[in-house]
């Protein structure tokens, strides 16, 4: 069974190739079928492989499959090869599973689009790239997947290219993440120079044997990899591209900019966790980046008007939680939150897409209202997603995963009180901002007429994802609440578990605090955005609101210190000043030509005078020297 692993990424890739070559000429149903079926079979295969793999644990904690030797130059020998362990298995499962439901959803969502085939071609290419990213056994292949998903993200953000604003958003996403990727590429050079290989397991093995904790190489490599991770995962200081990326079709936001690609940074750090363990300074930086990001994005989400931008900032914020977990060594907790977040954030985006689609592509929540009567199913599923995101106690997946992160931010070896405090405060904000959307969009009076009701292909994925937004949390329950450790014991075959030495009572108190804050947030949202709805619109005149609305001014700042100077320099030197040097030489010789040719007058007297002057000068020089 395990040797069919290569088929999992190969199928969507084959789907892409077929759609790219034939997409314009085949009927929509065929396009939809091929795109969805390839991903669906991959998902089934991933499940089957997962079951087989579980049967082999704990004797065999990993499986490797090498397809062919990619490059072999001067001892640099990366292969096209896959590595399966608990970590990549969870990623592979979530990617294929969520992607399948989003594909299904898209078959209806995009039905009126003229470029149906192109859309699904890109989507399939994305799934294939993402699978290569998570399965790669060496960093070069991982980098291929990494850049591949970036390119697909670019293609899909700019999918509706007629509006050049979408194109600009797409460019921004690609360029900003590329800044991070450049740091990552340098990390790869450093790793190769030091370890003579880019094979991930070999590097981790050698590093744990030969590298001292806190040594320069460990710090440099992990800091550079962190650069790549913050780019891809939209963390400080490279988070600015993600809100704009919402220009893409909503299924794209759900799949790429919520569930899968943006968590690649989390995966990268978890994948190379051995290196990070050797660089405590960088670990602290990861936690700090996570904490700051989750707070900044959480506050920005409070005042957005565009429903997708709320969710975008929410995604940045939730990935911040994952970074926070990684930074305190809670590797398993980060992956747990990745999984639950993939389900409930994909759900929120898809449900939001259903609302947007029903309301004439309206994105502004203040032009929505009372939608729950017309779209009851969308309402209930969105509510489940929101509850999960807000960490509604006991019954939602988000509660268990976020609670685990908050608890470990406090209790693990690298945990710190301020990390926990920011996390728990933002959990409170999270409940407010998402239930603000719930109350404004689904309650109150109707403001825009509901036109289109979602049909089966759109509603079924909502129900399935809502189901998983609840039950996926039950695989990991803290001891104080009954205790179940399916996820963490499975993960422990690939990632070390964080050591926790506090009592169960303390843990229970912390859970209680988080739960109460979440409930309080929901109550406050109800108070402000349900009962006092007419005062709910953010006042654009207020400075603080503007500041938060613009995501704390990062775009403004980057525009001034990077974009404008670059464009200015480029414009000033458009005609290439170096060329004018050569132009000058040419002009000079032409000028001299004019001067000298004007001496050729044909007048003998002038010539004679010239000869005389020349002779005198020569004689004078000869005498003087």
């Amino acid at each position, binding site marked *: 069974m395990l040797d069919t692993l290569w088929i999992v990424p190969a199928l969507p890739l084959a789907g892409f190739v077929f759609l790219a070559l034939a997409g314009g000429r085949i009927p929509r149903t065929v396009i939809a079928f091929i795109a969805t079926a390839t991903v669906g079979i991959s998902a089934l295969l991933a499940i089957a492989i997962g079951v087989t793999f579980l049967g082999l644990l704990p004797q065999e904690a990993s499986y490797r499959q090498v397809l062919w030797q990619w490059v072999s130059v001067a001892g640099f020998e990366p292969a096209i090869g896959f590595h399966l362990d608990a970590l990549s298995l969870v990623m592979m499962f979530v990617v294929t599973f969520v992607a399948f439901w989003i594909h299904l959803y898209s078959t209806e969502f995009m039905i009126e689009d003229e470029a149906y085939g192109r859309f699904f071609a890109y989507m399939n290419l994305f799934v294939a790239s993402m699978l290569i990213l998570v399965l790669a056994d060496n960093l070069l292949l991982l980098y291929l997947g990494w850049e591949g998903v970036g390119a697909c993200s670019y293609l899909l953000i700019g999918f509706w290219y007629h509006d050049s604003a979408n194109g600009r958003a797409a460019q921004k996403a690609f360029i900003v993440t590329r800044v991070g990727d450049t740091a990552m590429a340098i990390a790869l050079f450093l790793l190769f120079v030091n370890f003579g290989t880019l094979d991930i397991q070999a590097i981790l093995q050698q590093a744990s044997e030969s590298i001292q904790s806190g040594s320069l190489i460990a710090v440099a490599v992990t800091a550079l990899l962190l650069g790549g991770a913050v780019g891809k995962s939209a963390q400080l200081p490279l988070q600015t591209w993600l809100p704009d990326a919402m220009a893409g079709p909503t299924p794209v936001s759900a799949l790429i900019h919520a569930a899968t690609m943006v968590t690649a940074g989390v995966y990268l750090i978890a994948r190379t966790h051995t290196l990070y363990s050797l660089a405590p300074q960088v670990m602290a930086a990861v936690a700090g980046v996570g904490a700051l990001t989750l707070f900044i994005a959480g506050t920005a989400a409070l005042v957005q008007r565009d429903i997708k931008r709320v969710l975008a900032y929410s995604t940045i914020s939730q990935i911040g939680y994952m970074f926070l977990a990684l930074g305190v060594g809670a590797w398993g907790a980060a992956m747990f939150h990745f999984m639950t977040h993939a389900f409930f954030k994909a759900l929120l985006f898809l449900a939001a897409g259903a609302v947007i689609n029903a309301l004439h592509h309206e994105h502004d929540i203040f032009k929505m209202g009372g939608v729950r009567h017309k779209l009851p199913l969308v309402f209930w599923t969105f509510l489940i997603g929101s509850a999960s995101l807000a960490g509604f106690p006991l019954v939602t997946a988000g509660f268990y995963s976020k609670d685990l992160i908050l608890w470990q931010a406090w209790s693990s070896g690298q945990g710190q009180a301020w990390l926990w405090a920011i996390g728990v405060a933002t959990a409170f904000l999270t409940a407010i901002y998402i239930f603000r959307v719930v109350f404004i969009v689904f309650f109150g009076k109707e403001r825009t007429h509901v036109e289109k009701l979602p049909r089966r292909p759109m509603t079924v994925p909502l129900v399935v994802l809502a189901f998983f937004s609840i039950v996926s949390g039950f695989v990991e329950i803290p001891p104080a609440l009954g205790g179940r450790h399916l996820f963490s014991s499975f993960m422990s075959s690939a990632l070390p578990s964080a050591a926790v030495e506090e009592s169960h009572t303390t843990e229970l108190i912390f859970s209680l605090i988080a739960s109460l804050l979440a409930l309080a947030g929901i109550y406050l949202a109800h108070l402000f955005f349900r009962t006092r709805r007419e005062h709910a619109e953010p006042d654009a005149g207020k400075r603080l609101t503007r500041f938060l609305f613009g995501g704390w001014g990062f775009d403004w700042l980057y525009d001034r210190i990077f974009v404008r100077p670059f464009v200015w320099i480029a414009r000033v*030197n*458009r005609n290439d000043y170096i060329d004018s040097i050569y132009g000058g030489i040419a002009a000079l010789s032409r000028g001299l030509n004019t001067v000298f040719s004007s001496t050729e007058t044909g007048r003998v007297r002038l010539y004679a005078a010239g000869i005389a002057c020349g002779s005198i000068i020569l004689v004078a020089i000869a005498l003087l020297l």
Partner: protein
Amino acid sequence: MILVILIAVLFAGGFLVWGVGRRSPLGARWISLLLLSFNLAVTAVFWVQNHDRTSFFGGAWLADISWDWIPSLGIRFHLALDGFSLPLVALTFLLGIMAVVCSWNEIRERVGFFHFNLLFVLAGVTGVFVALDLFLFYFFWEVMLVPMYFLIGIWGHERRNYAAMKFFIFTQAASLFLLIAILALYFINGRYSGLYTFEYFSLLQTPVAGPTAMLLMLGFFISFAVKLPMVPFHTWLPDAHTEAPTAGSVILAGLLLKTGGYGIIRFVIPLFPEAAKEFAPVAFALAVVGIIYGAVIAFSQTDLKRLVAYTSISHLGFVLMGAFAWNEMALQGSLMQMLCHGISTGALFMLAGSLQERIHTRDTSRMGGLWSVMPRMGGVAMLFVMASLGLPGLGNFIGEFLVLMGVFQTSPVTSILGTAGLIFATIYSLAIIQRAFHGENSGRWHPGDLTVREMSILGVMIVVIIWLGLYPQPVFGTVLPALQQLIASTAG
């Protein structure tokens, strides 16, 4: 013998198509296409037959021919092919075919003479890649020049005379340095060994050191650096590339620039290893400047061909950097970069040319939204733009990555700055798509999409660039013995 055939076919074919072209332009096109396809097929068969042969008479040479030419001066007709030349020769014929195909509709006047010039340039390029007698090398070096001058000057665009003249003066002035350096080396070697010869292997033994070596090295280097082109000697390139007909741009960018990179790796460093080593920091600095300078200017261009031209300056900076790092990894990367740049930039020039053929402008500010009317061209352009920004999975990435990782081992700072250049590559590459294909079709263009003729050659390019991106090992395997010999020759 194969080398003589390949070159003779082109020279003889040149005269043939000139004659035929007077009666039947179409005949001239077909004959050129057939001759180049024949050469490509011969090269491909030869490659496949020799792909696992690592040595030939003790060296890395796969084919070798050496006849007396002017014995009294020690000039021989010496052609030889090793694994380093072979992929470049194959590229020459592949891009030659591309040049013929993209001129099919564009060139209407003096078709026979056009193809005569085309085949002669290609003959010169082929000769440059295989000549091992420095006099013969110089001969081929000049053979490339004149027909190219005609290609730009006769069939070029608005400012063709200016561009052709500029091209000629720059390269001719640079060639002068090369000629002087070759002659100086010839005399120094002759005085030392008593045997006056232009033979590459003999000249390799010339005991030249200190300032003399540095001067001679610079003589060779400047000539190749102008061709490469290296900042600040690059300004002939944007004009020549922009004004040349499409086939001219394809050959200039795809092949002529590569002769510069080839010359540095084949001659400059093996002949003067110490001087080159001393000079390496300067070369690194100029390479980095070129990568970033070319990329920034490319971004600001509104003329599509000019934009692509400046990207060449940026991309060839990697080749220069890799050459002076002089280790196996960087050199493999440099060669791969040359091959892939030839294909991807050739394809971009072909696209720019066919766009101009359809909408009669190269001004990107008048374009926009072209994807909606020509999706096939949009898709192909997207692929080659991705190649040019170094997307993994496509060949250019392999080249750039190996260069940067190879350079990192000798000069980490250079490598890091070069890597930063990839950000700029992203900016200008995406700008091409944004300006031409995205946005609203404000010019209300209704051009036809790519034809079957265009798609078939571009399809080949796509297959090759993906192949080089996912399985470049056959090329590395072919090149390896040659590189090892080159590196070994500088070790002692």
